[in-house]
């Protein structure tokens, strides 16, 4: 009870509330603009959170991402262009509702279901995370090694159509993580005599480079070539929303739970959760033939799932320190910069912080309602901001943000290099998600492996000696077998020309 009161006091302070509000408005803006994702919003926020205490930093990222996912629904419904990938599953449904004169209701359903899904996700997170943490407290370096490796492997497997390119992207991320002083032996690695690299590559330029600069390079040539059409005016948001929600209450509950579970899986995030929930809802529906033609049921299911997934991804991130998606990878990076190592110990050692994080989640999801309404009302203005103005501002913000990491221009060079690398990789269908997870998880995998090897005098077989470690290890090896198999199968099938 004391921990809960302390947590409430921590959250209800002016700085946290103000930061949440500002971050939510920022997320709203980024999410509503097609092409700018929730991950990009997080990457752009990190330089500012760098100067905050752990709780406001997390509060900022949680509010911004939740709001960005909701705001991403707006251009989907108005223009048939999803604002973020998480809205893509039901863009057609919302747009078709708009064509039937129900644009207000479509956006109202998006908003209300996002809040409902988000609250379900938070409830599951708050209930299960401490239980899992209690179980995880018995974990040793063996389990952590396998768990981190399993997280990486699953991220590769679900990263896209080509697991082989996902695996290569992950290896590049691990290579980036190897630069600097080895945490176990103190050996300098791949520093090339550059003093700035002695402490390793800072996470901030990596994040901004891979997510913001790479995306900017991809979007910039389109400026002036593809202008957005003028969006229609939204009238009567929320009219008839209550009735639809009551009618499809089962879909809300099912998608909320399913979204949270999918979010908790390593590598799977809000976009995958919304696609799966949409497909499942269609399969279980009494009227599957109406899907894709402006049917609210699909919208209810998928909108609930993507926000629930955001909360779900925090279960492995907070309990094990193993990120479930790119956003939680960034959160872990931010917490580590602040000297807080996520893991079961945080639950016992700093229960107030954990409870405060849960409260922040709840508050961020409740904030979606008034701010989402504001976003719907101001959608026409947000969508009319010309990219010719926006992109140079993002570029300037990236440079200042990277510099602020260590007050060194070297970070901008790093960001540029990684931005170019990210650009070429994405252009050639290499997913970036596994790379960023590898940058965060690389040192965790290595340090736990070395700890185990020191403990067992180099006997590799001992990594399977403990029962949970053996299960996790077998799963990790199985996932790798799938990756190699998919790569080999792809090699056999590659008989098509490059241009197709």
């Amino acid at each position, binding site marked *: 009870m004391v921990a809960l009161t302390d947590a409430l006091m921590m959250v209800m302070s002016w700085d946290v509330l103000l930061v949440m509000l500002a971050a939510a408005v920022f997320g709203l803006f980024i999410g509503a603009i097609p092409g700018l994702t929730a991950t990009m919003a997080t990457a752009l926020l990190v330089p*500012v959170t760098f*100067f905050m205490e752990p709780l406001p930093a997390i509060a900022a990222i949680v509010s911004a991402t939740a709001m960005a996912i909701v705001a991403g629904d707006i251009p989907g419904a108005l223009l048939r262009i999803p604002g973020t990938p998480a809205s893509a599953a039901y863009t057609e449904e919302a747009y078709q509702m708009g064509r039937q004169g129900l644009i207000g209701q479509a956006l109202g359903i998006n908003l209300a279901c996002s809040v409902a899904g988000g609250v379900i996700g938070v409830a599951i997170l708050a209930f299960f995370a401490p239980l899992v943490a209690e179980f995880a407290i018995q974990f040793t370096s063996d389990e952590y090694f396998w768990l981190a490796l399993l997280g990486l492997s699953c991220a590769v497997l679900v990263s896209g159509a080509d697991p*082989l*390119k996902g*695996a*290569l992207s992950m*290896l590049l991320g*691990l*290579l980036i993580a*190897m630069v600097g002083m*080895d945490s176990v*032996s103190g*050996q300098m690695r791949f520093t090339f005599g550059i003093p700035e690299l002695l402490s390793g590559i800072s996470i901030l330029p990596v994040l901004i480079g891979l997510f913001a*600069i790479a995306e900017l*390079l991809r979007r*910039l*040539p389109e400026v*002036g*070539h*593809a202008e957005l059409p003028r969006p229609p005016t939204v009238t009567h948001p929320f009219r008839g929303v209550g009735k639809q929600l009551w009618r499809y209450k089962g879909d809300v509950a099912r998608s909320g739970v399913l979204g949270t579970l999918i979010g908790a899986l390593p590598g799977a995030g809000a976009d995958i959760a919304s696609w799966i929930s949409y497909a499942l809802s269609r399969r279980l529906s009494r009227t599957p033939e109406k899907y894709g033609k402006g049917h609210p049921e699909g919208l209810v299911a998928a909108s609930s799932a993507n926000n629930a997934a955001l909360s779900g991804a925090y279960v492995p991130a907070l309990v094990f320190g193993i990120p479930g998606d790119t956003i939680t990878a960034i959160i872990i990076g931010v917490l580590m910069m602040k000297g807080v190592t996520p893991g079961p110990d945080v639950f016992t050692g700093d229960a107030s912080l954990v409870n405060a994080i849960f409260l922040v989640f709840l508050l961020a999801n409740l904030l979606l309602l008034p701010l989402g309404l504001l976003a719907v009302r101001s959608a026409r203005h947000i969508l009319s901001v*010309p*990219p*010719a*103005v926006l*992109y*140079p*501002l993002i*570029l*300037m*913000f990236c*440079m*200042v943000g990277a*510099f*602020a990491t260590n007050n060194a*221009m070297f970070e*901008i*060079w790093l*960001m*540029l290099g990684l931005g*170019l690398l990210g650009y*070429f990789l994405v*252009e*050639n269908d290499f997913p970036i998600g596994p790379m960023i997870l590898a940058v965060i998880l*690389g040192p965790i*995998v290595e340090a736990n*492996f*070395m700890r185990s*090897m*020191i403990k067992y*005098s*180099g006997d590799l077989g001992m990594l399977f000696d403990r029962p949970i470690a053996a299960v996790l290890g077998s799963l990790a090896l199985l996932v790798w077998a799938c990756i190699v198999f998919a*790569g*080999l199968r*792809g*090699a056999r099938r*590659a*008989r098509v*020309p*490059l*241009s197709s």
Partner: protein
Amino acid sequence: MRINDFLLGLVMALLGAVTIWGSRNFPSMPRQDYGAGTFPSLIGAGLVLLGLLLAIRGWPQRRQWLVWQASVAMPRTLLCLVVVIVSMMAYVLLVPVLGFPMVSVVLLTLLIGWLSGGRWWLAGIVAGTATMVIWLAFAELLRVPLGLGILHGVIY
């Protein structure tokens, strides 16, 4: 800009080989086979193995080294790439000399003016306002030493 998988695979494999070569002298832990070189070598081996797999997969497409698939023409894309690179280089090299406010205003004006097709008034106003906001937020509020450059002598 799609580059042939055969070529990409070879580059990855080469990077892996260089990584293994670069980690050959990292010392092992006392009385252990493992050490600072273990993981880099494993990563290098993974890059070689999977890179070669990608190269084998891309072998049937080896005649087409590069394919342009984007909706925007190649010269425009390359120009944008060069502009971003030059902008960043200009920022890094000029801010220590001229100071953040001056470089930011000029750079933003040029970029916005160019991208908006010559709306220089808009560019100038946005650049001035954005520079002021960034300066207030980062230099004044967060105490990031963005630097005044030659303006330091003018102001103080």
